């Protein structure tokens, strides 16, 4: 059954028609990627799902976990079980690593379970964060910040984790490490959807993919098939 269903979604920034009626779905337990070049509308798609764009620009329907969440406010959508790792990481620079993680669990009342999750899950997934747990977020390296952003999003106990360009600005070895972590998160039962400009790693990691081009979905298939597709190869995998 689909955890997320998007029907004919449009997004307008004033007069600019950024998303032109896209439809897609993500099944529970799946890992789905949305690839596309700069300006294709990837970030707009994810932020609209999460309620982080202006609701008045939205047309269409977003059904998440059986509820129509179109136009909901961001914090309500997080409470409903959809978390997002934002583009550019967006950690809180003047809060410590642990405080950043605790903010991810803002809606969870049980303090002890939050501490336990930080210790048993997040620090196990990213041991580097434990070493730096009292450092300020702003003092971390790019890779560490990405780990922190993922850890923070995981603390809201999401059913669906959205990631916006997890590879952005990171060294290849770090990118590998981040994607290994994303796979582990999926293996633990969290449904994952991410957008990527690095199509190669995206299609080699996810199960299924959509190709977004100037606000429209132009292709949809398993990642295996997309990797073999001549058009995809030419446009997104460098020949």
């Amino acid at each position, binding site marked *: 059954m689909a955890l997320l269903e998007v029907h004919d979604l449009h997004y307008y920034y004033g007069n600019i028609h950024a998303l032109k009626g896209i439809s897609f779905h993500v099944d529970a337990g799946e890992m789905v990627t949305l690839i596309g070049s700069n300006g294709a509308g990837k970030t707009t798609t994810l*932020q609209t799902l*999460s*309620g*982080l764009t202006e609701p008045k620009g939205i047309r269409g329907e977003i059904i998440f976990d059986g509820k129509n969440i179109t136009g909901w*406010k*961001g*914090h309500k959508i*997080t*409470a409903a079980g959809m*978390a*997002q790792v*934002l583009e550019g990481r*967006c*950690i*809180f*620079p*003047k*809060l410590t690593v642990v*405080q950043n993680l*605790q*903010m*991810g669990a*803002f*809606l969870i009342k049980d303090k002890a379970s939050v501490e336990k999750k930080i210790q048993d899950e997040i620090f196990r997934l990213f041991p580097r964060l434990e070493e730096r747990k009292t450092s300020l977020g702003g003092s971390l390296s790019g890779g560490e910040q990405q780990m922190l952003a993922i850890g*923070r*999003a995981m603390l*809201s106990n999401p059913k669906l984790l959205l990631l916006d360009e997890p590879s952005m600005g990171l060294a290849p070895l770090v990118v590998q490490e981040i994607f290994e972590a994303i796979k582990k998160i999926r293996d633990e039962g969290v449904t994952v959807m991410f957008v990527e400009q690095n199509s190669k790693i995206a299609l080699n990691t996810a199960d299924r993919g959509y190709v977004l081009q100037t606000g429209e979905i132009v292709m949809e298939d398993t990642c295996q098939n997309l990797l073999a597709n001549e058009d995809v190869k030419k446009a997104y995998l460098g020949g």
Partner: protein
Amino acid sequence: MLKSLIIVGLIMGSIYGLIGLGYSVIYRASGIMNLAQGELITLSAFLGYTFFGVCGLPYGVALILTVVIMFVLGVMIQKGLVSRYQKRGVTGVYMLLITFGLSRVINGGEALIFGSNAKRFPSIFNVSTVNIMGAHLQPERIMCLFLALISMLLVHLFMTRTKTGIGMQACAMHSKAAEACGIDVVKSNGLTWGLASVVAAMCGMMLGPIYGVTLMLGANLSQMGFASSVAGGMGNIYGAMVGGIIIGLIESLVGGYVNSTWKSMIAYLILFLILAVRPTGLFNEQAVRDV
């Protein structure tokens, strides 16, 4: 002489610090420099005077009523004015102008309701002076010192130890990320303004009995409070406290040993020196956004 000047300096410093804290709370949690802070102090003094001096309620009750009213007013200012302009993309100096305009509107309202004559805030205690280490002090001033320190400590603990307080800071650092964490950013920003107005209420309730209640009360004193928060590092809660005490001590010592007409000038010259050595204040707080 020195001892009593130091005590007076500490008292004034703690008041400056508390006034500065009002600026710092909003700046830290929303990146806005609120020029209406001084006027909120004046309004609180008028409210306190009305409840205590006119209605004859006990001081503690008048304090609580003023604090509650100011909290609600602070939330209303944020929701009804600031957030509406923020939504339209008003920031920086443009927002500064809005808060300045707000201060003039509040001031005009005060003049309309309470008139322009100075009001005498009745004494809270029966004794007129207390002798502490050779300094003859109004008991109201000693109460100020304690209330200011307790208020600062409570605000500090709230902002740095509670989830709500840390969430308020998170909203200022990255509002979209805060919303994605599940924080209701609109509500959180409202709370911030409510809290800063409560700090103003505390200031007004302490300053009224000492200086009398006039339309210029907050405007005069809030300059020094602003200077305190900048000297300490804008947005830093300890900073406002330490900055306030430094300025209070300088003023008191210069006033006692040199000349009281020079005290502000010398305090500001020392402030220049502090900023020359530490361009972002004593606690090295980077500016959140351009003001």
